[in-house]
């Protein structure tokens, strides 16, 4: 029986609304390996409420997208994230990833953040697997406690 941890970012009225987004993070154990995935959902309210799975769109246009997972200091010394899936050109995509943690020095819980960025590459050929684009569709800091 494996534990499942979910971190969420929810913006109830979208980027133009006055309500602030709600971000919930997770607590990770030391010296563990986690297999992760990301889901993107868009909810529309109006005449007909609907929920659209944006993740499929990103997967279909994988050659134009890439997720970057960056643990921020001080967590970066104890946590690493590696992207495991690839797009049609063989370059990393990031819908699935692996998180590895190592034991800390002190026993106190360490608080930090995991920065998640979805880069969009408009012009073909600019995605090289390493560099972020200038068009970030997603840029979120998830609070992580180790």
């Amino acid at each position, binding site marked *: 029986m494996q534990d499942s941890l979910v971190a969420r*970012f929810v*913006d109830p009225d979208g*980027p*133009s609304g*006055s309500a602030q987004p709600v971000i919930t993070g997770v607590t990770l154990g030391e010296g563990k390996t986690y297999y992760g995935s990301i889901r993107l959902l868009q909810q529309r309210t109006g005449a007909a409420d609907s929920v659209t799975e944006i993740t499929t769109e990103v997967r279909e246009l994988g050659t134009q997208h890439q997720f970057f997972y960056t643990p921020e200091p001080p967590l970066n010394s104890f946590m690493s994230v590696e992207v495991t899936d690839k797009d049609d050109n063989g370059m990393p995509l990031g819908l699935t990833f692996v998180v590895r943690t190592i034991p800390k020095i002190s026993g106190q819980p360490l608080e930090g953040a995991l920065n998640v960025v979805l880069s969009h590459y408009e012009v073909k050929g600019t995605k090289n697997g390493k560099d972020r684009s200038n*068009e970030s569709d997603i*840029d979120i800091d998830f609070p992580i406690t180790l």
Partner: protein
Amino acid sequence: MERFIRCFAAILFVALISGAFADALCANSPRADVTYRITGSVLDSATRDPVIGASVVLEPVGTGRRVGKEGRFEFAGLKQGKYALHVRSVGYREKHVEIELRGDVQLSIALTMQAVKGEEIVVRADRDAAEGDQLSEKELDEHRGQTLGETLEHISGVTVLQTGASIAKPVIRGLHSQRITVLNAGVVQEGQQWGAEHGPEIDPFAPTNIEVVKGAASVEYGAGAMGGVIRVVPRELPGDAKLRGNFAINGFSNNRQLASSLMLEGGIKGFGGFGWRGQVSGRIAGDSHTPDRVMGNTAFRELNGSLAMGYATDRYGLEAFASHFGSEIGIFKGSHVGSQADLERVIAQGDPSATYQFGYEINAPKQTVDHDLLSLGGHLIGAIGKLETHLGLQHNDRSEYENQRDPSKPARRSMRLELNTNSLDIKLTHKPIGNMTGSIGLNAVRQANTGDGYDLLIPNYLSYAGGAFVLEQLGIGEDVMLKAGARYDVSDMQVYALSIKEIERGRHAFASASGALGLAWDLGKSWSLNAGIATAWRPPSINELYSNGVHHGSAQFEQGDKTLTSERSVNTDLSLRLQTPKIAIELAGFVNRFDGFITLTPQPDPVLTISGAYPAFKYQQSDARLIGGELTLQYQVLEQLNTRLTSSVVRGTNTDSDQPLFGMPADRAELEVEYLLPDWLDAFQSSSLAISTLAVAQQNNAPEGMDYAAPPAGYMLLNARISTHAILLGQQLDIYLQAQNILNQRYRDYLSRYRYFSPDPGRNFVLRIALPFGNH
């Protein structure tokens, strides 16, 4: 010998006869030291009453007289020769009289009250076209086909807030958008002008006269004319049946643009006093080129048309004007960044990292605008004066398409705004009462805005506004004209803001008085002085009240404030002019004080969205002051060599925080040298060659904490143009060839919305050919 005597007799005879003729002529023709005078009266053509206060200017002497109570004027001490009299008066059509002076002359000049046009009183009545506030016929033709903003850039005090080659918003003395008013065919142009990327929807090819009134003009034009007014006045319709027209074609090298227009005008045979004009124009442009690269997705397209009809007699007139403006504009791909982090990275790079291929395709992000205008006017001249009424109907339809994730799918529309504006203006210009001329008027406006889309910048609203004004001019003696005006306005706006699933109602009502006092003083020896003090106001605009979202391309989260109140200003203006045939000087200065100036102010906490953290800005009110001036010098060095220098400075300060205001134009100066080329082969006439240089300083007065990048460095551009009026095979051809930014200078203008992302466009060659036909 006999032959010789006959010849000699013949010569003698001819000599005697010529001598007799010569004597006869000499009796009337003056010797060098005898002088003559021109006297006359200026009367109203309908009532034969004297037109008090009319200005009579004698060229080439360059002096003027103002007609007094009797309607009389006099010029004395004139030598024989050719003269021209220019007679002008507020509310009347200008008259020009050519005189071949060989003796004392007495004239009776009849002026007709303005017909066919529903034109407003030009309050500063004695302004000359050459003084720079009105573009001359020649200047207009040189710029025909460019956006309104670009055309006006050459008037001192006017700069441009630019978003690429197709969106250029005029800035008058540092103020723009909802702080200036654009009048098109007598109707105030309403097209979401609060948006920095929303350019005025005016056909660049329409045959119009363009006039700029700098400074507060709320008394005449209502709320919103705090910085000035740009009047785009369609030229008078023809009064006869002759078919005339103009075909023009322009090419621009920088974005491989082709623009063309066809205009036809005429009347109906046997139906004198009736005129019509039809016009259609279009533009298609590809991506712009900076000195280094192609600016991706900056192509645009435009299709416009208009139809005008009018009938006028000396006593009344009716006119209808209908126009359509349609455009599709690509927004520079490199300007569409995600978060603040992205923007900072782009600025550090200095130029978009992607290389774009040139093309004419317009993809998302893009905007489409359709603007329809119907203006109906009528006037009646009676014993009391002239009554004018004007009805305006406008529909502005603006859509924005956001960046596409999947280019194979059609572009998704993120926002659509439809703005319907109906206006009614009634004005009575009374016949002169003693030395006083003037008018009283009423305006009413109804405006409805409805929006659609998931990224709405502003909510729906319905607003009503009305105003009444009185404006009088009094002539004192021959040299002084006083003006005074007062106005009262009310406005009421009901807002329906959608918040998740609820509608939030808001109501904003304002009322305000405005006033103006002015003085025009003919100091003699061709000097004149204009001074004025005027108040202006405007209610807060919908975006200032209700914005709540990220402004694309600026990576700023803008928040409105529903509690904002109206902005008020007091503007003091002074200008000194010299106008002689060889030299013209204008020195103007102004101080514009604002109470409740609405501006974006940085907030301490950023706003979080899915694409990152954005610095938050909120619309707040404070006291502000704008101070500045312009200097224009024109000097005719030789008969064929003219020089012209225009320069302007503006300093804007938030007087509460003592910080400079954001987005003020930098100091600038433009110097032009024009050489009139001699006619060539009889076929090429009125040719000229001009070289000009524009120098713009770095904006060193910018507020702290409000900008991602420091204002760009100053720059200098070199431009040239050559023009001629050719007659080839009986057809007149006006040809203009211009080279802009000849040295392909790499620069960024502080007022360019793309300055974070890219340098401004590089070298541009422009070829304009106009074919007037039917004898203009």
